[in-house]
C-alpha cells in the first residue's frame, strides 16, 4: 500500500482507521488491477436500466460480496458521484480509487464503460448501415414515441423530487421557458442556473 501517497497525509483516511478495528478479510491482500477490471467489466455488461439500477448492482458486488468498502463509505462515494457525470460511472471510479489509487480508479472506469461502449458501437454501426431497411424503419417508428414517453416520466419523477418550493418551481419553469420559447442553448441555461445557485448560497451564508 506504500504506493498510495495519501497514507502520509493526516488525518488518516477513514479506510485506514477502519483497518485497525475491524478485520476485513479482503483488505489484507491487495486487490489486483486485473480483478478490478474484471469486476467492473462484468458490472458494465450486466448493468441494464441505467442510474440507480446499476448502483444497486455495484453495491451488491463491491460492498456485500467482495467487501471492498463499507456501506457508509459507499454512500459517500455515491453522494460525491452526483456532482458531475453519470453517478454509476463515478461510483465505479470512486471504488477503484479506494482500492488501488489513481490507476485503480481509471481501470475501474474503463472496465465499466468498455462493454457498453463496444455494444453501442456495434449497434451504431448496424444502425447507420441498415437504417434504410423498411422493417427496421417500422420498428423504430414504434420506439420513437415510447422514448419521448420515457423522457416525460423522467421529467415528472425528477420534478416531484427536486421541486419543493416556489423558488425551485420558478427555476424549473424559467429553464423550460428559456429553451422552449426563447430557444436558448441548454448549456447556457445550466451555467446560468449554476451561477444563480452559487450566488444564492453565498448570499445566504453571509446574511444568516
Amino acid at each position, binding site marked *: 500500500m506504500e504506493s498510495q501517497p495519501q497514507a502520509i497525509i493526516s488525518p488518516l483516511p477513514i479506510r485506514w482507521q477502519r483497518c485497525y478495528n475491524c478485520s476485513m478479510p479482503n483488505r489484507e491482500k491487495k486487490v489486483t488491477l486485473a480483478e478490478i477490471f474484471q469486476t467492473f467489466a462484468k458490472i458494465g455488461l450486466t448493468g441494464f436500466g441505467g442510474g440507480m439500477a446499476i448502483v444497486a448492482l455495484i453495491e451488491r458486488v463491491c460492498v456485500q460480496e467482495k467487501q471492498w468498502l463499507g456501506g457508509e463509505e459507499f454512500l459517500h462515494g455515491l453522494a460525491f458521484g452526483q456532482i458531475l457525470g453519470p453517478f454509476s460511472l463515478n461510483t465505479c471510479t470512486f471504488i477503484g480509487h479506494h482500492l488501488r489509487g489513481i490507476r485503480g480508479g481509471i481501470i475501474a472506469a474503463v472496465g465499466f464503460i468498455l462493454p457498453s461502449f463496444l455494444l453501442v458501437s456495434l449497434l451504431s454501426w448496424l444502425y447507420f448501415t441498415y437504417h434504410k431497411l423498411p422493417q427496421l424503419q417500422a420498428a423504430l417508428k414504434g420506439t420513437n414515441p415510447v422514448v419521448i414517453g420515457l423522457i416525460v416520466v423522467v421529467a415528472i419523477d425528477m420534478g416531484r423530487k*427536486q421541486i419543493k418550493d416556489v423558488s425551485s418551481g420558478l427555476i424549473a419553469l424559467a429553464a423550460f421557458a428559456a429553451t422552449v420559447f426563447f430557444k436558448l442553448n441548454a448549456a447556457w441555461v445550466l451555467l446560468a442556473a449554476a451561477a444563480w445557485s452559487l450566488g444564492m448560497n453565498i448570499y445566504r451564508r453571509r446574511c444568516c
Partner: protein
Amino acid sequence: MVSLLTLAWIYFRIGLIFVGGGYVLIPLLNHIMVEQYRWLTLRQFLDGLALSQLTPGPLAMLATFTGFRSGGFLGGLVATVFIFMPCVVLMLIIGRNYTRLKNIDMIRNTLDGLLPAVVGLVAAAACNLGASSLAGVRDYIILAAGFAMFKWTRVSPMLVILGAGLAGLLLD
C-alpha cells in the same frame, strides 16, 4: 467526417457541464448534434436514445452513438473518452481528498439549487422532441402506453422499447 480534435473539444465541454444525471444529455446533445451541427436528424437522435436504452450501462452512452455518427468508430471512441474525462478526473481528485471534502456542503447546496433547472430542461426536451417528431393519433397512443408502462409498472425500459419496436413492426 469531422476532425477528431473538434469532436474531442465538443464532448469535453459537454462533460464539463454534465450535471444532474444522464438525462441532461438529451437536451444538450439534441441542441448541439441535431440543431447546431446537423450531424443527425431528429429521427436518428431518437433512435440513438432507444439504442442506448437497449444496451447495458449509463444513458450517457448516447455520446458514443452521436460520436459514431460524426466520426465512425474512432469518433465514438473520442466522444466517449472526452465526455467522461471531466467526471473521472473529478472523482479521482475527490477520492484523494476524501476526508477533507466530506464536510464541505457548499458544492452540494449549489448542486441542489441547480437540479430544478435540469428538471425544466428535461421537460423542455420532451416538449421539443415530441412537437417535432410525433405525427398522428397512433404515435400518441404508443406514447401514452409507454408512459404508463414506465410510470406505473416495474417492467425494464429495455423490454418496453423492444416491445414498442415489435408493435411498430406489426402495426406497419
